[in-house]
């Protein structure tokens, strides 16, 4: 059953007024509350200008740090507070340290069954001679997975901040840092020509030998990145861009991190569900041993070397 309502009647209903109020067409207080429409204020140009000047002066005055007593007081108070905070920190830390177990002793609480198992059975369980590598890439691999993503993330933030689009950066000379480069420095170029292959070789050696001795993906990657930076400095962007561009870095980073994540998913999944891992550990001491650790080291090395080089390029020039 519906009934027809005339427009006049409808306008009296609550629904209509609510809708009007919602759409802003009518003010519910109109006619009920006495309101005077505001007078339009007309100001002459001069007055406006004077106001602007005044505003300017107030801004200048309030941000005049040297002469603003309030700001100075606040700063002094802040400084005092911070200094007290730091002194308290030193005191608390020294008190804490003074009753810690003395360093260098075997019976300290740190040397418990956890480290004992790493040392005694690490070689059999991970296949890595370097116990530290075995620990960070197998026992506590979740940390390392996070850590390599920290690096990746830092690169992304640097890209956000420093990358310029091609059109823009050619506008000004300051942005194009090439002019600061030595154009044809014979000494630098000859030295680099001799040194860079050795640095790269050493970096690769450190990466590949991570499970056999000191080193690993991170340090080796940093060495490789440093070699690339030296090469860049000696020969300029034109040469390096032939083999290393932003696209190369993206693909490399994606490939390495994807490989890392996949490998770790496999080992986490099998570990948690108590499935035997099918990856052989190999004979300890051989270069192709210790299961996934070698692959992970290579992945980390790729990410790190690319990241270091990218940091440098972004800081220098803001684009590949």
């Amino acid at each position, binding site marked *: 059953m519906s009934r027809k309502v005339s427009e006049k009647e409808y306008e009296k209903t609550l629904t209509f007024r609510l809708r009007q109020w919602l759409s802003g067409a009518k003010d519910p207080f109109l006619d009920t509350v006495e309101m005077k429409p505001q007078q339009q204020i007309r100001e002459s140009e001069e007055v406006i200008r004077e106001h602007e000047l005044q505003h300017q002066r107030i801004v200048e005055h309030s941000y005049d740090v040297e002469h603003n007593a309030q700001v100075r007081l606040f700063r002094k108070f802040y400084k005092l507070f911070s200094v007290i905070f730091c002194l308290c920190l030193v005191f608390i830390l020294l008190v804490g340290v003074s009753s810690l177990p003395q360093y260098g002793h075997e019976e300290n609480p740190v040397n418990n069954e956890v480290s004992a198992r790493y040392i005694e059975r690490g070689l059999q369980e991970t296949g890595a001679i370097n116990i530290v590598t075995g620990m960070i890439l197998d026992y*506590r691999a*979740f940390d390392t997975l996070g850590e390599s993503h920290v690096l990746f993330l830092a690169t992304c933030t640097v890209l956000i901040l420093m990358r310029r689009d091609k059109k823009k950066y050619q506008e000004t000379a300051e942005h194009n840092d090439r002019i600061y480069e030595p154009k044809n420095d014979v000494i630098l170029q000859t030295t680099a020509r001799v040194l860079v292959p050795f640095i790269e070789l050493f970096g690769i050696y450190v990466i590949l030998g991570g499970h056999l001795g000191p080193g690993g993906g991170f340090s080796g990657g940093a060495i490789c990145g440093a070699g690339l930076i030296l090469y860049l400095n000696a020969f300029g962007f034109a040469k390096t861009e032939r083999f290393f561009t932003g696209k190369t870095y*993206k693909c490399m980073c*994606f490939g390495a991190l994807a490989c890392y994540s996949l490998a770790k*998913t496999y080992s*986490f999944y099998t570990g*948690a569900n108590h499935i035997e*891992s099918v990856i052989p550990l190999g004979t300890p001491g051989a270069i192709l041993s210790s299961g996934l650790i070698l692959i992970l080291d290579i992945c980390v090395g790729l990410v790190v070397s690319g990241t270091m080089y990218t940091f440098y390029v972004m800081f220098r020039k803001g684009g590949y």
Partner: protein
Amino acid sequence: MTHDFVQNFPLFCIILTLFSGPCCMILRGRWARYVNLGVISAVGVMSLFVLLDVCARGGSYVYMMGHFPAPWGNEIRVGPLEAFMALFFCIIMLLSMIGGAPQRLRKIEASKENLYYVMVNLLLSSLLALIYTNDLFTAYVFVEINTISACGMIMICQNGHTLEAATRYMIMSLLGSGLLLLGICFLYGLTGHLLMSNIKEAVAQLVAAGTYHAPLMVAVGLMCVGLAIKSALFPFHSWLPDAYGYSTVSSAAILSSLVSKGYIFLLIKIFYRVIGFDIICNSKIINIFFVFGIAGMMFGSISAARETNIRRMIAFSSVAQIGYIYMGFGLGTGMGVLASIYHILSHAATKSLLFVSAAGLSESSADSRELADLTGAGYRNASAGMAFTVGALSMVGFPLFSGFISKILFAQAAVNQSGKMLPTLIALALSTILNVIYFMRAVIVIYTPLRSIPAERREGYRRIRMSTYPQITVVFGCFVLLNLVLGLMSQPIVELCARGLGMFG
């Protein structure tokens, strides 16, 4: 024992979000956006399954990360509270991302859009890892991921305000994470473990034996202060208003509702699972939290009342809400912590709603954020206006909405605590009054008819219909629904949280 397939989902969630980071980097902006939304929804669905599974089982379980059992390998621990938090964070993040999309697409350079999704994905992964992890050092690494990605989200629109805010944010966070790391090192030096449950056993032994009391307290203090600095507790909040006030909407919503909550959740874990809540309560640290929490409530509310920029006003209100949460810790009872957890939920649901609707309001008012320019904005953008009103009412603590329940829980927790009852109740009352003052002022302004301001100032004002951005209207609806659910059906949620908290120990 082998796991059911569902029990692998937490691992899949973490790995999927981590993996989607590099994925978004090689994709173009539009595809990265789809990947991002897909990943968040997938993680949300998986978390829902985990929650149902854990509730059906009625207990938490430990998931080994690798082939080695507890003290040697890494592990994650899944319980009802963790799964619920993961689900809730995913919902909030999804809604904030959809709700902020139009403004984000306008503000961010097209070539850098995919990098923004990298940040969001990794932020989600770090939140999930912080929720699930059972290892202090892993927590540290993911705290760093959280910090860096939050910084990236602040500065994605590069103007002076955001750059300065990002720098200040980084400095504060670095101070905090330095203290946190040092605290972890102290604790490691005393116990020789990094896994939370093992540390708790060792700490209990130390306390029983009465040895190493001073360094233990130093370690606890360092970790607590570090996390308090990171989550912008009152004297360390200087970066917050600019960071939330000038970054893009989705960033502001996610930062205010999720990032600092990740740290606070870690702090709760440290209380219950690393040190033991009794030891924390017996130390003086919670009193410090109590005092600074109340100071933060007062200061944040007063600053918000003095603020004329609507986004900064909401940001200052965040300072006050973080004060509430720390005050709940400061009460030193299980009830207090429960109230804080509920406040985390209600604040997350409300604050993101407020940020998204405030963006809608200023869009209809020539992109101005000054309260005076927002006159009548509630008529021009009806859905945003209503959403803002709901959010404001919830913040104030109006019955029906979530803020009411959390305030009641705080009051209940305070009543049981004789010494701290009076200051807590007074602070709650005062801060509620201040909340009313500034939120209701904003609501009145946006519903004042436009006629009262001169015509020449109305330039750029435009009407935004609900059909202009249908997805945002849906987002508002979801947010309001979430608020109503938290406000009307609080009992099962509180019980769930209490059960989960009970399993923490």
